[in-house]
């Protein structure tokens, strides 16, 4: 290989690797004061005011909470409703559980998004930006709680999920669901404060609550926290999600990218130079020829 070829090769390779070197690593420790909501399922009466308030605020489908008898069957949040309440028959009676985006500390959907359409705001809510999203739905694949929902029957589909009423928070208001709750089952605040309240309730009524707070450590900690009278797997929660923040699962792979991008080309170039036998062949030829001359 001549020098020009070498330079051309190195420059092409270097330029191609450039945009991918910056792999940010999120700190595993919770350092900011993110806000969240504490859900005390022992206080919820299943009135579904939160469902209606949420849909009114975000211009989604408003359920007829008095007459639609929706509690009869198990529902999931959908592209039409960002939050739903389900009813569970347990050993401690009927328990109602509100579900919505958990607003993870280190959200899988945010790590998944290749255009930063999903983002973790400074205040804590995880929000979606339609001007950036290209609709690849990788956030839906990644979310351990199956929260982001796509509008499959729209030509301009949005990714629909609870935003913790980010706009309302900026106006100094509470999320619509929290404000609409008639029984104080929902409590809005900073996670540190909410954890103290939650622990206080568990300690002062050890017979009323199970001794754990869902969301304290699940998937690395979530903004929404749950208290329950029965083990969480009996009221529709997955308890096998682990305590590792989900972005951690792809971190090692992403860190290996710049290493491979710089290491492998050098290795390949070396292999290519090693296998270059042109010089040897011509030397051999010359040797043979000079041998012929001597004879």
């Amino acid at each position: 290989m001549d020098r020009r070829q070498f330079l051309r090769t190195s420059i092409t390779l270097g330029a191609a690797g450039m945009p991918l070197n910056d792999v940010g690593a999120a700190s595993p420790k919770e350092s900011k004061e993110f806000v969240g909501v504490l859900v005390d399922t022992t206080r919820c009466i299943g009135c579904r005011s939160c469902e209606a308030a949420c849909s009114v605020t975000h211009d989604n489908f408003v359920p007829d909470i008095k007459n639609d008898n929706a509690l009869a069957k198990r529902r999931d949040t959908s592209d039409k409703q960002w939050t739903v309440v389900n009813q569970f028959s347990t050993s401690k009676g009927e328990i109602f559980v509100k579900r919505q985006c958990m607003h993870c500390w280190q959200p899988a959907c945010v790590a998944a998004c290749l255009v930063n359409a999903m983002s973790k705001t400074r205040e804590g809510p995880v929000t979606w930006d339609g001007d950036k999203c290209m609709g690849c739905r990788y956030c839906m694949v990644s979310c351990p709680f199956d929260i982001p929902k796509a509008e499959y029957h729209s030509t301009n589909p949005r990714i629909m999920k609870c935003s913790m009423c980010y706009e309302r928070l900026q106006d100094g208001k509470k999320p619509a669901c929290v404000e609409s709750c008639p029984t104080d089952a929902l409590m809005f605040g900073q996670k540190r404060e909410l954890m103290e309240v939650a622990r206080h309730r568990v300690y002062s009524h050890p017979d009323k609550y199970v001794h754990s707070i869902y969301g304290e450590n699940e998937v690395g900690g979530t903004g929404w926290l749950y208290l329950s009278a029965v083990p969480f797997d009996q009221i529709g929660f997955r308890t096998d999600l682990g305590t590792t923040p989900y972005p951690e699962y792809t971190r090692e792979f992403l860190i290996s990218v710049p290493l491979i991008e710089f290491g492998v080309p050098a290795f390949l170039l070396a292999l290519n130079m090693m296998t270059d036998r042109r010089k040897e062949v011509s030397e051999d030829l010359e040797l043979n020829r000079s041998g012929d001359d001597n004879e």
Partner: protein
Amino acid sequence: MNNTAVAKNEFGRFIDFFIQELKPRGKWLTPFNVISILTILAGLIILYVRFTQGLGSVTNLSQQFPWGFWIGFDVITGVALAGGAYVICFVVVIMRLEKYHSILRVTVLNGFLAYVFYSGALLLDLGRPWHIMNPLIGNSFGYNSVMFLVAWHFFVYTCALFVEFSPAIAEWAKFEKLRKFLSGLTLATVILGFTISMLHQSGLGALFLMAKPKIHPLWYSEYLPLLFFVSSIYAGLSMIIFEGTISHKIFNNLIGEKTHHSHDEIVLGLAKGAAVTMFVYYFFQAFILLHDGERWKLINGFWGFWYLLEIVGFVLIPCFLYAYGVRNRKFAVIKVAAILTVLGIILNRLNVTLIAFNWYAVDRYYPSWQEIVVTLMVVFIEIWVFRWFVTRMPVFSRN
């Protein structure tokens, strides 16, 4: 004449030549053409509905299964099967093994078209495809996303494959100076292409690392990227054997006598490579299964047997068939092994993306007939374009 005039003249000549070359040759009312044209028309109608009424109108996608057949088969499987291009480029350009030179161009062309059409199929699946440029032009870089890496690498690799193939185009258009310049870029693009192939083939596996609670544990492991990378090597090699067999029947008149002769030796070499890589892959799978004591217990019931079927029936058996075929120079056995391997890759990728994904779901996902017709449409268009290239450009033999 000054330079501009020369360039103008040359360009005019090229345009006339290009239009001439676009015209069909020979009789075109063959059974393949009729079937493919009807399928393509049907596919276009379905795509019209898809873009006017949304993805839900033609696909069976659901909130639980956000990725369906178009991603699981067209993109994830299609890209794995196109792995032959980077393997052969490595062998011929970097390791300088001249034996495989005669299949270099056709393999690169196959790879290029596969990337254009199969990763292009991604566009059909995007909900908001008009934002496709967002990750590329830089108004919004999601550095922490594996998808960001895959998107960039798809794009760059497709360009690299085009540059690798471009000398054939320049030769066809009789641009001698350009051909020399483009040939000079080959080594750089091959090195770049191999590196980013390594990363995006494994990246496709890494996409599913965050879907940990959704994929059946027999198909999920932290080594998914490694497994996807290794399997793309033998997937590509098997696909070359498989496509080569068909090409040699159909484009017999285009392939020179000498190439015919050495083709047997090439197939044996490719089969050898596939056998070894498949054994490595099998070893990795076995190691992952045995390393973690908990996994053993999963080998029971439907999912355990389904897993064993994939690993034994479509990895270990074709691996041995390859070895047997090479040892005894039995080409029929090698062909069977190649077909089994390709089926095994399809099975594996569909398992990770669709079948063992949300394996506990009550409402399973099955592709709608429209999703299958559009997939066939993509395959047929690719074959049409491939046929156009090989019948006009020096792909099988060099001038």
